[in-house]
C-alpha cells in the first residue's frame, strides 16, 4: 500500500511540476472562448464584407416578388431564361431562379442556375420565401384578407414544468438541461482520451527505457499500474479543480463588472423588491427559476463519479495496451476496442440521449459501463430515476473492476516482453496464463 502511494506521488508530481501542465491548465479555459470569439468575429466580418448577391428571377407566372435580404437581392428585369443564364455567365448575376408557369397546388420545376453550388443557406432562404409567397397567394385566392394573415402570425414559447415524486413543481428548460448534459459528456469524453493516453505513454516510457524491470523487482506490477492510474487521475482532478476556480473567479469578476454597469436598476430592486416581482416572466427571472430547479448537488456528484469511473475503466485498458507495445505507433493496432465504445458513447450522446433522454436506447447507453460515463451525464441534468442511476453506478464499478483485473493480467506479462509484437491472440494467452 505504502509503495502504491509512492508511485502515485511520483506520477502526480512528475506531471504537475511540468511547465506544460501549468500552461495547458491556464490556457485551455481561455483558448476555447478565444476560438469561439475569433469564429464569431470572422463570421461578422464576412457578413459585413460580403458583396450582395444578386439573383435574377425569371418568373413565368409574373406574380412572385421575393423580398431581398442583407445577403441576397432579387432582380426582376423580364429577361428570358437564356438571357439570364448569359448574365450569370458574364458574372453580372450570382444566379438565376427559374419559376416555370406552374399550378399553385403543385409548384414543380423550379430551378436555380448558378456558377457554383448554392449554399444550404441560400436554397433554404429561397425555399422558405417561395413557400410563404405561394401559401399567402393560395390563402388570398381562397378569400383570406392579407391583413388578417399578418395579424394571426404568432410566436409560441412553451414553459415546461416537471412534477416530481412529491408533487412539487419545477420550472425546467430543456435548453439548459441540454447544455449541461452536453458539456459534462464532452468533458468526460475528452478527459478519458487525454489522460488515458497519458497512462499509455507513461507505461510505454517505462517499458521502452527499461526502467520497468528495476521497478517490478521492488513492487508488484499491479501496484505499479494502479499507482500510475490513480496518480494521473489526481493530475486530471487538479486540472479540473483549477479550471472550476478559474472560471468561477472569471465569472464573478465579469458579473461584478456588469453589475457595476447597471447600478440604477440594482438600486431600484433594492428599494422596491415588489417592483421586480411586478415584472412578469422576464427572461432573466425565468432562467433563474430554471437554474434553481436543477439539482446541482446531484449533477456535480454524479459528474465526479462518472468522471472517475469512466477514467478508471478505460485507464486500465490504456495501461494494458501500453504494456503490450514498445512504441506509441504500435499501440494503434490495439486502440480500436477502446475508441469504438468511446466514440459510440459520444455519438449516442448527441443522436439519442440529448434528443430523448428517456428512450430505450438512451437507457441502455447510460446503463452499459463502457458507454455510461458519457451517456448518463446527458441524462442526469434532465433527472433520472434513482434506481437507474444506482444500477448504472454499480455496473460501472463492476466494469472498472473487470477491466482492471483484465488489464493487470496483460500488463504483468506485457511489460517484460521485448522484441515481439503481440496480436490479440497473444494477449488472450496472457490473460489465461496464471502466474
Amino acid at each position, binding site marked *: 500500500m505504502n509503495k502504491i502511494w509512492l508511485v502515485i506521488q*511520483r506520477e502526480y508530481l*512528475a506531471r504537475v511540476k511540468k511547465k506544460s501542465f501549468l500552461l495547458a491548465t491556464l490556457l485551455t479555459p481561455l483558448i476555447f472562448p478565444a476560438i469561439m470569439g475569433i469564429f464569431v468575429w470572422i463570421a461578422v466580418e464576412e457578413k459585413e464584407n460580403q458583396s450582395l448577391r444578386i439573383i435574377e428571377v425569371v418568373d413565368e407566372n409574373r406574380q412572385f416578388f421575393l423580398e431581398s435580404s442583407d445577403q441576397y437581392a432579387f432582380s426582376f428585369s423580364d429577361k428570358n431564361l437564356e438571357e439570364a443564364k448569359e448574365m450569370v455567365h458574364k458574372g453580372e448575376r450570382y444566379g438565376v431562379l427559374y419559376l416555370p408557369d406552374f399550378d399553385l397546388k403543385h409548384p414543380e420545376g423550379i430551378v436555380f442556375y448558378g456558377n457554383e453550388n448554392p449554399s444550404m443557406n441560400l436554397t433554404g432562404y429561397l425555399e422558405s420565401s417561395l413557400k410563404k409567397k405561394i401559401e399567402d397567394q393560395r390563402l388570398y385566392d381562397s378569400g383570406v384578407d392579407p391583413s388578417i394573415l399578418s395579424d394571426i402570425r404568432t410566436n409560441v414559447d412553451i414553459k415546461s414544468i416537471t412534477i416530481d415524486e412529491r408533487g412539487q413543481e419545477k420550472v425546467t428548460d430543456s435548453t439548459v438541461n441540454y447544455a449541461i448534459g452536453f458539456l459534462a459528456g464532452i468533458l468526460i469524453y475528452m478527459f478519458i482520451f487525454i489522460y488515458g493516453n497519458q497512462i499509455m505513454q507513461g507505461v510505454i516510457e517505462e517499458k521502452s*527505457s*527499461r*526502467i520497468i*524491470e528495476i521497478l517490478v*523487482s521492488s*513492487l508488484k506490477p499491479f501496484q505499479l499500474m494502479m499507482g500510475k492510474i490513480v496518480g494521473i487521475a489526481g493530475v486530471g482532478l487538479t486540472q479540473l479543480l483549477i479550471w472550476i476556480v478559474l472560471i468561477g473567479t472569471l465569472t464573478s469578476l465579469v458579473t461584478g463588472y456588469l453589475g457595476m454597469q447597471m447600478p440604477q436598476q440594482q438600486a431600484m430592486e433594492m428599494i422596491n423588491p415588489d417592483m421586480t416581482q411586478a415584472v412578469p416572466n422576464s427572461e432573466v427571472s425565468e432562467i433563474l427559476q430554471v437554474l434553481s430547479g436543477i439539482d446541482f448537488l446531484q449533477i456535480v456528484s454524479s459528474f465526479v463519479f462518472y468522471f472517475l469511473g469512466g477514467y478508471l475503466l478505460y485507464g486500465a485498458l490504456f495501461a494494458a495496451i501500453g504494456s503490450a507495445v514498445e512504441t506509441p505507433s504500435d499501440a494503434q493496432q490495439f486502440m480500436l476496442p477502446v475508441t469504438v465504445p468511446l466514440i459510440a458513447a459520444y455519438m449516442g450522446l448527441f443522436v439519442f440521449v440529448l434528443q430523448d433522454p428517456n428512450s430505450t436506447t438512451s437507457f441502455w447507453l447510460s446503463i452499459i459501463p463502457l458507454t455510461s460515463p458519457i451517456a448518463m451525464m446527458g441524462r442526469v441534468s434532465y433527472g433520472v430515476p434513482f434506481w437507474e442511476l444506482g444500477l448504472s453506478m454499480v455496473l460501472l464499478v463492476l466494469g472498472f473492476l473487470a477491466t482492471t483485473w483484465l488489464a493487470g493480467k496483460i500488463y504483468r506479462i506485457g511489460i517484460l516482453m521485448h522484441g515481439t509484437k503481440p496480436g490479440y491472440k497473444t494477449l488472450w494467452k496472457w490473460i489465461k496464463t496464471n502466474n
Partner: protein
Amino acid sequence: MLEIKQLSKAYGQTKALTEIDLSVPKGVIFGLLGPNGAGKTTLIRIINQIIEADSGSIHFEGNRLSPAHIGKIGYLPEERGLYKKMKVWDQMLYFARLKGLSDKEAKHRISDWLDKMEMNTWREKKIEDLSKGMAQKVQFISTIIHKPSLLILDEPFSGFDPVNAEIIKNEILELKKNGTTVVLSTHRMESVELLCDQVAMINRSRKILDGSIREVKNSYRPEVFSVTLTNLRQPLPFEWVAEQEDDSYHFSLPLSGKSPNELLGELMQYGQVLKFQEVFPTMEEIFIYQVKSTEQ
C-alpha cells in the same frame, strides 16, 4: 545465503529452467555464466520475485523467499534505464523509497553517496542531460542504496567506459568486503576470473557446471605443460613444435599418460629446464568447451 532446489520454469512448451540446484554462500561473488537464452535472466527474475517458478524452492538466509526479502535484494538488470525527465536526486530517492527506506534515511544515504562519488553538482540535473557513464553511476548507486545483503548484477559492465568500469569493479569488491553476497551474471570471462569466487554455468535450461573457480579449473585441466628448455644437449623430437628465442626453446607438451615427474625426467635429458608449468584453462576456454559439448 541462497539455496535453490529443483527449480523449473517453462514458457508454454519452451523450457527456461530445468531442475536447477544452486547454493550461494554468504559473502562470495558468485558468477552465473551461460550463453544467451540459456535461462540466466529467468533465474534472476525468479530470485527477484518478478516471475514465479513452476516448481522447486528458493531459501533466502534460511527462510523461504518471500516479498519480505525484497528490501534485502538489490538488482541491476541487463536491460536498465532511468526516468529521463527526472532529476538525479528525485530518481535516487524514488528507488530508495521503493526498496523500503524511510524518507530521512534515504536522503541521508543519497547525500553520502553523492559526496563519495563526487557527484554533488549533478543532483538537480535531469538524467537526459547526463552522459551515459554518469547515468550508469546513478543507476548503480540506486541499486545498492538500500544496502542489500544480496546484490544481483546482470552484465554490470556493459556500457561503461574502462575508467568507470574500474570504479564499479572496486565498489563491488568493497561491497563483498563488507559482507554483501554478489551474484554476477556476465559473458565477460576476464571479469569472472578477476572477481568471482564461485561460478555456475547454465546452458539450455540446465546447470552444467558449478564450484569454486579453482575446482572448476582443476577439473578441466587438459594435462598439458608449458616448457622452456635451454642449453640443448640433443635435438628435440620433430613433433614438439618449438619456438626458438636466442638459445631458449618454448613449447607445450601433453602428459600422454605419464606422471609430471616422468615427463620432467625425460625433458632433463634434452637440456636444462628453465620452466615446467601446468597449463590451466581460462574460464573462457572452459565456457566455450562446455557449451559446445552440451550442444552436441
